[in-house]
């Protein structure tokens, strides 16, 4: 039997945007075991609830991640609103939905670019990011920020988008969709991409469910679970079905993300058609007293917030379980038995966001 060798992978690796370390045990180029170790960029954001007023904590929640920043803020605010029984105006709910879907579009296109880069397809990477720029411009125009938006607050949102601007955004997204389509077709049809991603990193339906995979990893393995179906914000009034692929490999996870870009554009169109007029925030008085689990669908999967208030300005406990964290166990499973050369691609297909994971 060939000798067991351990290859350290990360924390610095060309394919990784962020530091995670894996000890990869191989026998004869085949991975037999992968042992992850985390904690390079722990920031202690959860502990900051001791020092920050619960209203200011929203700014901290947004800074957990630079890609899903909006949805982190939304999750935090929704949890506090639920504890305090605040009725958020409908317009604010729709605006949150629109911004959340825009986040999903830009996150997925960013990931598709990175995937192309990991497969050695530089020009596709650049074109993906060029398309994504349009979404960032929409963010800058409507919220003022490109990465951190700061529009969420407990009780609603801080900025309104006028109805004609919303119509224009739908137009811009249509243009973007037209530009994205040829790129998406490359991901779907191109021989080299297919060859690189197909039958790599298999994760069976049962394993995906048992190990608690979330988001595109779970749906790429044929399980139809999407936290948006819980009907938070305006999702209960929009018409959509979770996107599921059944081939259980890296290719399936790529296709789920490609199709989710189209789905998000469609959701934004629906939301713009249905958005009611009215106020965008609700005045909040008092302090949260009680506890709540808030669940949302981020681009990378389901995120869970737990928060407990004690009737003072500072929360007792604030805990975030981010999607990458739950995808690490499935990742270890996927890596078992793969070729060493496939390891970077497999790690990339869970869309690792390590800053999120370590908060």
């Amino acid at each position, binding site marked *: 039997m060939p000798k067991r060798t351990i290859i350290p992978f990360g924390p610095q690796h060309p394919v990784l945007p962020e530091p995670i370390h894996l000890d990869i045990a191989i026998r004869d180029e085949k991975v037999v075991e992968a042992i992850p170790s985390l904690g390079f960029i722990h920031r202690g954001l959860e502990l900051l609830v001791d020092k920050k007023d619960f209203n200011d904590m929203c700014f901290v929640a947004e800074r957990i991640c630079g890609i899903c920043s909006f949805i982190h803020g939304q999750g935090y605010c929704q949890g506090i609103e639920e504890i305090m029984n605040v009725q958020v105006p409908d317009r604010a709910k729709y605006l949150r939905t629109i911004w959340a879907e825009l986040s999903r579009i830009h996150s997925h296109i960013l990931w598709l670019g990175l995937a192309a880069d990991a497969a050695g397809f530089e020009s596709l990477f650049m074109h993906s990011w060029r398309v994504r720029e349009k979404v960032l411009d929409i963010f*800058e125009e409507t919220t*003022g920020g490109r990465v951190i938006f*700061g529009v969420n607050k407990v009780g609603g949102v801080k900025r309104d988008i006028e109805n004609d601007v919303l119509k224009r955004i739908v137009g811009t997204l249509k243009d973007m969709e037209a530009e994205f389509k040829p790129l998406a077709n490359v991901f779907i049809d191109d021989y080299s991409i297919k060859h690189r991603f197909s039958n790599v990193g298999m994760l069976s339906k049962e394993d995906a469910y048992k190990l608690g995979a979330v988001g595109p990893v779970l749906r790429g393995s044929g399980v139809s679970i999407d936290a948006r179906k819980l009907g938070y914000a305006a999702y209960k009034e929009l018409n959509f079905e979770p996107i599921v692929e059944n081939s259980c490999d890296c290719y399936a996870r790529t296709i789920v993300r490609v199709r989710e870009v189209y789905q998000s554009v469609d959701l934004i169109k629906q939301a713009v058609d249905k958005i009611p007029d009215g106020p965008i925030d609700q005045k909040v008085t008092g302090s949260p007293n009680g506890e709540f689990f808030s669940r949302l669908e981020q681009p990378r999967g389901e995120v869970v917030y737990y928060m407990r208030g004690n009737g003072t300005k500072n929360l007792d406990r604030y805990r975030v379980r981010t999607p990458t964290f739950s995808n690490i166990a499935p990742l270890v499973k996927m890596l078992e038995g793969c070729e060493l050369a496939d390891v970077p691609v497999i790690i990339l297909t869970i869309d690792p966001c390590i800053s999120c994971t370590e908060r």
Partner: protein
Amino acid sequence: MPINPFVKMTSTVIKHLLGPTACKMYPVEKPVFFANTRGHIAIETNKCILCTLCAKKCPTYAIQVDKPGKAWKIERTKCIMCLACVACCPKKCLTSENQYSAPVTVKVVETFNVEPPAAPKAPETCPGKE
């Protein structure tokens, strides 16, 4: 009939060669900011009443209000442009401008003398000692 890959590639190359560039020639071509862009915080010094609310609300402690010295100070590298100060100011003298503050190599605290006309900043007195 599927398009010949060579024709497809050539048309893509020509499109991108002749089309507009995706990037801006930055220093030559100035970036255009949106009206909403969160650039930097500006203060109208003749309106401020030094109530210190903004300093208390700022989540990053970027603002210091020096009441005796009649000065409003901001450390721009700390500011995260959350606009909490703009929202809470009772005199509405803080605004968000859409130009980013200039990059710096050392952290500086910008001081604005409040109280028109711009009187020279009062010398710092130490109340404990004569």
